[in-house]
């Protein structure tokens, strides 16, 4: 049984992606018998291409993806180059880590509430500094160049890339290389990029590509912060997918293929960029320049990093304020009065979404944890570590655009005569939860001292007993932390819930995003704040449970 789990796990990850791609590939070429599509045609591609503004939408998606990824990566790498090992870095790390669990939608809403012309920042400086008493007519949020959308994505991807980079640092021997480079007279920036960066980048390449693919095809952040005339390709796809006119599904399928093409093109451009950087980098190494505006960069990067995390934190605070705001006139920095009425008015409507969110999140997390533990235990028993090729497969669902294959799955389910049900939604969440659970648990699981197992085996205990009584309880903290990561990922899912559930299973996230167009800040504040808080509650539980269970076991806290 255990022997087959790794294969089963890969099936759960890869199966839906491939099936989903088939599910849009055939209708894109006109084949969908249940809707009368029986002959091969390119009409729907023509249809997509002749849709006004669709090229602009595609270029937008491509640009957002490339800029977001490049800027986020640059911030994280410069941050490590300039500040790693300092007190500032440590505190920034503590500031950024919790931001990782804030769902994209909540962060995007927070940012919108902050930077909009009538947002908090403007209120804080008005009218005493700006002289304005009514919100200026500026298009900041939803700006046509997607600047605010990119800002929101960058603020969320920086903590992610920082975390994966920090995980890669121990293997790259950063400290000694930096010291060595410094003794040769290299400044921190050139020293870092010429000695450590290539190794670190190689290790974080898959997460970087995942960020790139995500940013080219993201929907929820695009709805909240992105431009609308025209919207990024993914948002327009979703409109076609949700069109009551059922034949629009052909166009949506062709569009999904086009999204796939846009993301593939972004990856291709990125790969070429990698080659250019590699060649240029090698030449730069040979030239031996030692300094690269280190002092100025150091300050700039600190400001950028603080700014990007402060935006998310302040955004959450302002979400909280709006959720309890009574009357709040424009230039006032704070509402005239506070009230819980916003919450009590929503209480009834919150019940179902909250219940769905918790059910789906807990179930998907449980499935992902069981599969991950089984894979890791099978790995320990067979001695065969997952290959790097298997790791690529793990990232596949994070690199293939969600909007493309999830829509295909939705078509497949309907084509096969199935109806949307909660089990399907749960398994669609597992596709995204599982990679993160696996990635966060694999290292601590493998780092466990196997001599404990040798001792227990020597006492006559078999593999199962060692797993349940020794390894699992000793690794309870990382297991629960991985579960909290998985839960947070599930909370953040928008498309999977919407497309696979055919809109029949509203969650906090789908409701919150649906509120975006309405613009009622008090209601959005309530939903987005709940969305942001749920992952925190998960992490708090993951940390306090072992602390409680092992309150009299000092060694169990040391690395918690």
């Amino acid at each position, binding site marked *: 049984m255990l022997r087959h789990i790794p294969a089963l796990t890969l099936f759960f990850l890869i199966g839906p992606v491939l099936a989903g791609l088939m599910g849009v590939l055939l209708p894109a070429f006109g084949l969908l018998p249940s809707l009368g599509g029986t002959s091969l045609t390119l009409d729907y591609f023509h249809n997509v291409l002749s849709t006004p503004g669709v090229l602009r939408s595609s270029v937008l998606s491509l640009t957002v993806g490339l800029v977001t990824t490049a800027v986020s990566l640059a911030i994280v790498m410069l941050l490590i180059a300039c500040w790693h090992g300092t007190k500032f870095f440590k505190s920034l790390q503590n500031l950024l880590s919790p931001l990782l669990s804030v769902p994209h939608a909540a962060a995007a809403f927070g940012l919108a509430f902050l930077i909009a012309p009538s947002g908090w920042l403007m209120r804080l400086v008005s009218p005493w500094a700006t002289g304005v008493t009514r919100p200026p007519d500026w298009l900041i949020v939803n700006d046509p160049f997607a600047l605010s959308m990119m800002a929101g994505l960058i603020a969320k991807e920086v903590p992610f890339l920082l975390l994966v980079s920090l995980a890669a640092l121990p293997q790259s021997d950063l400290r000694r290389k930096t010291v060595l480079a410094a003794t040769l007279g290299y400044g921190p920036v050139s020293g870092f990029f010429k000695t450590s960066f290539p190794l670190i980048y190689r290790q974080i390449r898959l997460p970087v590509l995942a960020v790139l693919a995500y940013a080219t095809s993201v929907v929820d952040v695009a709805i909240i912060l992105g431009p609308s005339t025209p919207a990024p390709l993914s948002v327009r796809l979703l409109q076609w997918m949700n069109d009551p006119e059922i034949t629009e599904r052909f166009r949506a399928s062709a569009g999904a293929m086009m999204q796939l093409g846009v993301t593939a093109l972004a990856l291709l451009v990125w790969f070429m960029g990698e080659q250019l950087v590699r060649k240029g980098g090698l030449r730069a190494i040979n030239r031996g320049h030692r300094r690269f505006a280190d002092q100025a960069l150091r300050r700039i990067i600190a400001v950028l990093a603080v700014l990007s995390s402060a935006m998310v934190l302040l955004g959450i605070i302002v979400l909280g304020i709006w959720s309890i705001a009574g009357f709040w006139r424009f230039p006032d920095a704070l509402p005239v009065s506070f009230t819980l009425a916003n919450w009590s008015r929503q209480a009834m409507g919150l019940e179902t979404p909250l219940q769905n969110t918790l059910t789906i999140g807990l179930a998907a997390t449980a499935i992902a944890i069981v599969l991950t533990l089984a894979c890791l235990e099978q790995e320990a028993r067979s*001695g065969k570590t997952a290959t790097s090729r298997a790791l690529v497969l793990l990232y596949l669902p994070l690199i293939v655009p969600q909007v493309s294959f999830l829509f295909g799955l939705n078509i497949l389910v309907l084509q096969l005569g199935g109806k949307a049900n909660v089990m399907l939604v749960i398994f669609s969440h597992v596709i995204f939860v599982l990679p993160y659970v696996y990635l966060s648990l694999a290292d601590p699981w493998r780092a466990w*001292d*196997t*001599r*404990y*197992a*040798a*001792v*227990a*085996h*020597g*006492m*006559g*205990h*078999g*593999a199962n007993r060692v797993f349940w*009584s*020794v390894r699992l*309880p*000793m690794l*309870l903290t990382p297991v629960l932390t991985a579960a909290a990561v998985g839960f947070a990922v599930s909370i953040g899912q928008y498309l999977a819930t919407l497309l696979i559930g055919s809109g029949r299973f509203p969650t906090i996230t789908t409701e919150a995003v649906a509120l975006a167009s309405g613009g009622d800040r008090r209601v959005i504040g309530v939903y987005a704040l709940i969305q942001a808080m749920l992952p925190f509650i998960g992490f708090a539980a993951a940390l306090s449970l072992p602390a409680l269970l*092992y309150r*009299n*076991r*000092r*060694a*169990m806290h040391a690395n918690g």
Partner: protein
Amino acid sequence: MSEPNDGLTLKDVCILLDDRPLVHVSAHVAPGDVLTIMGASGSGKSTFLAYVGGFLDRAFSGMGEVYLNGVAIHDQPAENRRVGILFQDALLFPHMSVGQNLLFAIPPEIKDKSERRHLAEAALKEVGLEGLFDRDPATLSGGQAARVALIRVLLSAPKALLLDEPFSKLDADRRLSIRRIVFDLAKARNLPVLLVTHDAEDAKAAGGRVIEPLETAPAPKP
């Protein structure tokens, strides 16, 4: 009483790393005797013990036959070999109390709860740690933890004992006393003992035969 087969018998036990032989041992350890394997770190001693105990890392390959009281154990899984092991770290399970660590070791054939508890308490008393049953292992001194680890492995009723540099992390004072207790208790239980160490003092204190396996290893084939 003692039959010639009793004890631990090693027949051409050989540890290979990338097809290069690291260790090659043929020996018989009678019950109550200690066989010491000397060698610098990195010489494959620990790997050799891992092969005998049945938890060899897959980077290595081992071959050769191991008999315990006349029964072949080299093709048995570790949990069926009844070979206890002590490492240089006590490796007390950090999520269990001292007492739970001991109860975990006592064989399931002893069913009666109060008897199990009594065995654990008596073992603590035997090494001068009376009353530490409910303690958190993390609060023990190095010497105390080493003694708990020793009685833990003995409570599991092994038929042989493997010692992997078990004294090397103790400070000089404790090392003497712990070494004495380990060898005394192993002898009292008539266990064949395999000790690997790089410390000549350990070997002398063990009192048994000493071999340096690399000298007996065949020259690597070209």
